[in-house]
């Protein structure tokens, strides 16, 4: 029983890494209608920036704040000078552009900081507490709390604010939104900027655990995508729930179904996604896209 609970808790901690990235993906998708493969890469860049400021002697929290602000600018500039050209075109091309961006950003990180694992200081203490007989590190706990806060903020942003409405309107149909006076270009920049900001938060949250390398979030990206699709592209809550579920399920299956084991456990979330999507194509919490011809 102790092991079981510990596995669940561990799964939630792992899931929160995926969730952090997944939230950023949801944000970009809601605000621009795109899936951004570069999300992980941009988050890593932000974490490196924070790292660089720490190296310069700034206090960690200040370094993180500066990195977050710079990330907003970076995201906005990426939209303006790169993605803009592809927004109205073939969506496949736009996706490949984000893949190119991922490669470029990863490469830049590698050139500037190398491929060695760099230790990233943690905002939270390394101690752990016991809950229900399971040991949880304070860091994981704090990460999870931060993510829940972000999730709530995002949900409110999209559903309760004028900015959120405007972002969704632009993602839905930029040409039509412009007729109501929505500054499409600026809103898209804001959307990308916010997503990059969120990515930066994700990056500094998970960097202490994964240690900084240019490819730090490559694997997490796949899980994050899975969580986004499973939870529903439109739902921040959905993707956090899905990410946690994936983390927990993987652990349990790997341990309690020896035939699957730790090597094939990754198949489980995908099988689950598949079954769920057959029943609910919009994902657990997503809204169905209504299409009439």
């Amino acid at each position, binding site marked *: 029983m102790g092991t079981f609970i510990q596995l669940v808790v561990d799964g939630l901690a792992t899931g929160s890494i995926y969730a952090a990235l997944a939230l950023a993906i949801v944000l970009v998708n809601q605000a621009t209608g795109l*899936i951004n*493969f570069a999300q992980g890469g941009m988050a890593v860049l932000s974490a490196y920036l924070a790292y660089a400021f720490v190296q310069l002697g700034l206090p960690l929290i200040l370094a993180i704040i500066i990195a977050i602000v710079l990330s907003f600018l970076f995201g906005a500039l990426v939209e303006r000078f*790169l993605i803009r*050209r*592809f927004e*109205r*075109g*073939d969506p*496949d*091309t736009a*996706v*490949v*552009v984000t*893949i*190119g*961006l*991922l*490669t*470029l*950003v*990863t*490469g*830049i990180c*590698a*050139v500037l900081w190398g491929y060695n694992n760099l230790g990233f200081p943690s905002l939270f203490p390394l101690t752990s507490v016991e809950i229900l007989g399971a040991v949880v590190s304070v860091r994981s706990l704090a990460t999870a709390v931060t993510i829940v806060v972000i999730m709530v903020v995002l949900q409110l942003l999209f559903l309760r604010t004028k900015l959120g409405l405007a972002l969704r309107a632009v993602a839905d149909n930029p040409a039509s939104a412009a007729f109501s006076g929505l500054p499409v270009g600026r809103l898209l920049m804001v959307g990308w900027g916010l997503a990059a900001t969120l990515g930066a938060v994700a990056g500094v949250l998970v960097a202490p655990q994964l240690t900084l390398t*240019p490819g730090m979030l*490559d694997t997490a990206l*796949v899980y994050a*995508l*899975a969580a986004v*699709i*499973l939870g529903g*592209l439109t739902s921040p809550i959905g993707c956090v729930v899905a990410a946690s579920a994936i983390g927990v399920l993987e652990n349990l299956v790997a341990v309690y179904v020896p035939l699957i084991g730790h*090597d*094939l456990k*990754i*198949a489980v979330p*995908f099988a689950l*996604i*598949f079954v769920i*999507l*057959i029943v609910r*194509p919009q994902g657990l919490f997503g809204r169905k896209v209504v*299409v009439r*011809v």
Partner: protein
Amino acid sequence: MNAAAATARRPWVRILLAALAAIVLIVAPLALPPFANQTLVRIGVYAVAVLGLNIVMGYTGQVNLGQIFFVGLGAYVTAYGVNHGWNILLVFVAACAVAGVVGLLVALAAARLGGLAIAMVTIALPIVGVPLAKRLSEFTGGSQGISARFTDAPDWSGLDNDQWQFYIVLVVAAAAFLLARSLVRGKYGRAFAAVRENEAVAASMGISPYRTKVLAFTIASIFGGASGFLYLAAVQYTSPETLSFGHSISLLAAMVIGGAGSIAGSLLGGAYYVFVPQLTNAIDPNLTTVSQGAILLAVLFLLPGGLVSVPRVVRRLTRRTGAGRSTGRRSSAGPVRETSQQTAPAHRPVPDDALEGHEQTERQDGP
């Protein structure tokens, strides 16, 4: 310009050009240095994989992040067959068939989903495929991989290995490209495009979106298997790394860079896949990631329609806005000045031959 284009469309000119191309392809490996042949061989390998991806994604619009899985599957089947002494034709058929059947089974389930959900199912293929390949080490050699040699030139041919491999790849790739080209030019090309554009509309034309997606996916898998066969012909070794997810992403990038929804673009995509690492290695092996990213973005920035759109872009840059086009196409005559019904521009040739027309199923580049 127009005259040249018209000449180029005449049947005998086309036949002549095709024959010329064939001769060049057949003679080239005899004259080229081994490394050039080896490079061309690898281009052939990936061009076939990209071609398959293009069918399902470029033409039919179903995001497929799992194409590399079928390449790997084909490679493993080939290795297994070769090492068990099967006849090489049988090996080839098996590589295509196994990949095709697995693709079909996956598609039967995945094609029920649309859009990004399909992306998720396909992403799972390489992600699960790698540990699976390690698990099934009896067939796959586990993480150490498996070697299989079957493309050493036989003595009677008097050829070098690279030349012999070139011909094997040429035969398979040429067949794949010709078949794909015929397929996307008629009934099925339109069906693919219709499903990509709007499934409800496609369905009302009698095209079952589900079956069409399954068909496209299966074809892509078969081509993936064929590409895997060629992979083994060229590399003679495969391991779980062959089917890693990152390569699937690279294939996707190669497809878009070559030209989504274009047969010729697939070849260019294959060339891109092979040349760019070579190029970036030559620039500076320590900066390959940056330079690959920069090249990819630069190419798409200049050519959002992919490399295949170069002639179109050149034409657009050189063409002066034709006045005939803008007035001639104007549709119904207004009621005030009573002219007769809509007037047609005299110069717009209407193809009278069904299949010899210009490549109309090729997708236009973006707006």
